[in-house]
């Protein structure tokens, strides 16, 4: 080192020292700033570590207790949904059963409607006239169109002889005699007031007038005035149906009264016209000159 004569540093040396001091001071300041920066970073990292640790603690502390809770909730929800589904299925079955019941009831009502319509029309037509042959035609129409009979006969009971007198024969050609004495069998049963229906229906071939498929007494009260005998049905009609039995019951009562009253009316009309002619003859002025 260069020194002055009095043993102190010379001027050049002094400047050099001052520059180096300044340099050291700067270096120290930078070191201090760096240290401070390191300390701040350290602090920040410690906070971050603490945060992470806290999160980990929270996470590790939360999972074991919440999972069972979620499973329980989900299980309960599944059970509730299953209960709801069972309820809905039960209601669906109930509605289905109700639907079936309503459909069956509707069909029943339809059938009843049909029966009532047929019975109404039959009774209306039977009592729509006092002309005997027209009433007989109505009975024939009921037997053909409403019951589906193809071959049949209507007999009148002769009170004196007990024989059956044929009033009408349809689809039987000459096989039904004008008079029949009912022997033991359906015709005699009918004369005694009992209806007869063959069940099952026999072979349609070979019709015997004494053996009808159905035999209905025409009754006024307990008195049998006639008999309807059905021998064969239309080919599309395979058996008697419930409506047919209701129509037979109607025929037994209403056709009997309609036929009987129209016959009486016809007789009384005839008698009235005879009496009128007789009265006219009695009351007529005598021709002049007699």
């Amino acid at each position, binding site marked *: 080192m260069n020194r002055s004569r009095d043993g102190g540093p010379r001027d050049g040396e002094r400047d050099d020292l001052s520059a180096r001091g300044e340099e050291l001071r700067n270096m120290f300041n930078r070191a201090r700033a760096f240290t401070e920066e390191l300390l701040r970073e350290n602090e920040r990292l410690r906070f971050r570590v603490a945060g992470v640790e806290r999160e980990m603690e929270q996470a590790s502390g939360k999972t074991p207790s919440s999972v069972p809770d979620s499973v329980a909730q989900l299980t309960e929800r599944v059970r509730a949904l299953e209960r709801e589904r069972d309820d809905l299925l039960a209601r669906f079955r109930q509605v289905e059963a109700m639907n079936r019941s309503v459909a069956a009831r509707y069909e029943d009502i*339809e059938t009843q*409607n*049909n029966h009532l*319509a*047929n019975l*109404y*029309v*039959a009774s*209306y*037509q039977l009592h*729509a006239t006092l002309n005997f042959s027209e009433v007989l035609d*109505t009975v024939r*129409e*009921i037997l*053909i*169109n*409403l*019951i*589906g009979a*193809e071959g049949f006969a209507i007999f009148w009971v002769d009170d004196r002889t007990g024989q059956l007198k044929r009033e009408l024969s349809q689809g039987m050609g000459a096989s039904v005699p004008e008079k029949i004495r009912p022997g033991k069998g359906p015709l005699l049963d009918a004369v005694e007031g009992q209806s007869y229906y063959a069940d099952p229906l026999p072979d349609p071939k070979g019709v015997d007038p004494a053996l009808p498929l159905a035999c209905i007494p025409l009754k006024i009260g307990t008195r049998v005035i006639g008999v309807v005998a059905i021998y064969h049905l*239309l*080919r*599309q*009609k395979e058996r008697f149906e419930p409506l047919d039995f209701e129509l037979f019951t109607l025929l037994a009562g209403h056709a009997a009264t309609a036929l009987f009253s129209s016959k009486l009316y016809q007789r009384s009309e005839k008698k009235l016209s005879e009496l009128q002619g007789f009265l006219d003859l009695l009351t007529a002025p005598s021709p002049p000159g007699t």
Partner: protein
Amino acid sequence: MSATTFLIVEDSPTMRQLLAFSLRRLKDCRIIEAVDGVDALKKLTTEHVDLVITDINMPMMDGLKLISVIRSNARTKTLPIIIVTTEGAEEDRKRGLALGADAYIPKPIHPSELLKTIASLLEHARN
């Protein structure tokens, strides 16, 4: 919408009344009755008809002849026709349908079957 007009051609008053009774269950319907084919043709010339229900066996003019006449007339050739008859044989059915009937129902009738057939024919006619 105007009422649907039905022409019932049937010589039996009982059957006419039963058919009319069944048809009256339909909403907005008008019923015209004819006792045979000749009477039906007279009514067809003076009335608007939507559907004809006819028997086969009738005096004066039977149902088959009536169908032929209806089908040969330009004004009525597309008119829906239902045969309601006691003739239940397959050959009778084929004959009726071959002449131009749209449906063939043997007696005794079931009103529900008749009403179903009518509904189907009217639907077809409208389309």
